């Protein structure tokens, strides 16, 4: 591995990390705030990608295409939420159903599985038109601005009355209902906002890479979880909500840097998904392993002299 080629890969990795960071923020809402594992994500990321590519190629303004991609994501989240809250299908299954359905829908939207955005202006081109930077730096600048705006909006939203009730829903549903808020509505709303952000991320990545792809979201949920876990491990769960949101976006950037590193080290791209899954599995397993290890130590510790063991 050469240091120079690794360094050359860094700007691209960082800008991809920031753009995928928008998706991570969406996953954070369901996984951490709402305490639901929403598997719609893989489908809604591709949905954002495909919707955006189809619209831009159809002559729609690239900024407007981003906004419409958000709407498409909201709709995908609504479908999952509807299946989950109205028909009481378990959240994981509801998400899988939407995800699978979206695969067909995404191909319908683009009319094919992959659609390059050739000879059209993207939001990245617009940025390079304003300031003299290359496309990678333009992606990074745009990504940082959008992430900052999204974090600001989420920080505000989760401080509102509805936002508080949504946070409480992930905490204690009994309480929320007893205080007169509908937990079904809160879950529906959370799933919608989450998938809206995921689709926005998919649309951004599509424009920065120059093509829409039905498979672009494959494994997105695991990448999202990996980014959250990395962010939390490195920055801790302290401080304010905005800090936590920023830390998972940085987690997403670190994930991309690690990926760039292992690719430079000679790992095949085909093995990436395995590696990502391993990272997440290990990170999620650690708390349980530590707890069991502590318990074992407690049990095997010598009895307190002259005292009854008060714990059954």
């Amino acid at each position, binding site marked *: 591995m050469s240091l120079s080629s690794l360094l050359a890969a860094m700007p691209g990795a960082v800008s991809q990390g920031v753009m995928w960071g928008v998706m991570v923020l969406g996953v954070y809402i369901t996984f951490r705030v709402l305490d639901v594992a929403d598997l719609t994500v893989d489908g809604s990321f591709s949905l954002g990608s495909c919707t955006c590519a189809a619209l831009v190629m159809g002559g729609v303004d690239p900024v407007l295409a981003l906004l419409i991609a958000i709407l498409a994501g909201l709709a995908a989240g609504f479908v999952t939420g509807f299946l989950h809250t109205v028909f009481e299908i378990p959240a994981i299954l509801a998400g899988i159903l939407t995800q699978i359905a979206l695969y067909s829908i995404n191909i319908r939207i683009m009319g094919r599985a992959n659609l390059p955005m050739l000879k059209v202006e993207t939001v990245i081109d617009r940025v390079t038109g304003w300031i003299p930077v290359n496309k990678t730096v333009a992606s990074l600048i745009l990504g940082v601005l959008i992430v900052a705006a999204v974090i600001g909006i989420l920080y505000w*939203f989760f*401080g*509102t*009355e*509805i*936002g*508080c*009730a949504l*946070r*409480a829903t992930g*905490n*204690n549903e*009994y*309480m*929320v*209902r*007893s*205080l*007169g*808020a*509908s*937990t079904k509505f809160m879950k529906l709303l959370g799933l919608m906002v989450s998938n809206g952000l995921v689709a926005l991320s998919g649309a951004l990545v599509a424009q920065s890479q120059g093509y829409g792809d039905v498979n672009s979201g494959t494994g997105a949920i695991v990448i999202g979880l990996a980014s959250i876990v990395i962010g939390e491990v490195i920055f801790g769960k302290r401080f304010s909500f905005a800090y936590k949101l920023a830390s998972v976006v940085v987690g997403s950037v670190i994930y991309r840097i690690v990926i760039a590193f292992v690719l430079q080290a000679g790992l095949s791209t085909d093995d990436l998904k395995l590696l990502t899954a391993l990272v997440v599995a290990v990170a999620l397993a650690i708390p349980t392993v530590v707890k069991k290890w502590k318990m074992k130590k407690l049990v095997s510790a010598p009895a307190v002299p002259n005292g009854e063991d008060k714990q059954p």
Partner: protein
Amino acid sequence: MMLSIKQVYKTFNPGTVNEKKALSNLNLELEKGDFVTIIGGNGAGKSTMLNMIAGVYPIDRGSIILDGVDISRKPEHSRAWLLGRVFQDPMMGTASDMEIQENLAMAFRRGRRRGLGWGIKKDEKALYREKLRILDLGLEDRMTAKVGLLSGGQRQALTLLMATLQDPKLLLLDEHTAALDPKTAKKVLAITQEIVASKNLTAMMVTHNMKDAIAYGNRLIMMHEGRIIYDVAGEEKKNLKVADLLEKFETVSGEEFANDRMLLN
């Protein structure tokens, strides 16, 4: 009349081996300001009755009218504006990852439409501080602490405060001191008494402690097999002894009150 329960039936798992008639022709009327204690053996329907009033499960038949509002078929969250609830499990009434003041702010909005205004406004904090000071648990100085850091007793006291922050038409207390140690239980009961009396609330308190059932409130009902089998108020209630209740239960139900928890208390 504040509460009117008429001919309410509820059967869990009908048509299966686990079929359980939880409520069977339940009738009850409460006047405004009534503080009723509810006793009965395990499975008598005490908690079920409270859960039916709160709308946790739908009733099979009958009607429940609270302060002139027919709530028989309303979902749980759309009748919450009328009710204050404290549960047996101290974890159930509060959100542990949220601050004490955030929990209070959500309770403050019970029965109001939630919008995009701030979840907690500046001037509310003074009100919460003052209310917390009355509890005398030192919580007024820890308003930004996460509720998960509080003890069971502190959480129950907080839940009680939350349940009565907006005066409920009916306060439902479902063995809210059962999970606490005796000293803390006593303190929470004293706070309950004070709040109910000062706001002249209508309240229902399920308890396993017969002495408490006699000592608190102005009315006592005993349940058995989903019905009310004994209903006593006023002077007659005040003069009750634990032995009277045990005897009453045995004569009415034809069974022994074989419940260690109730005898030991």
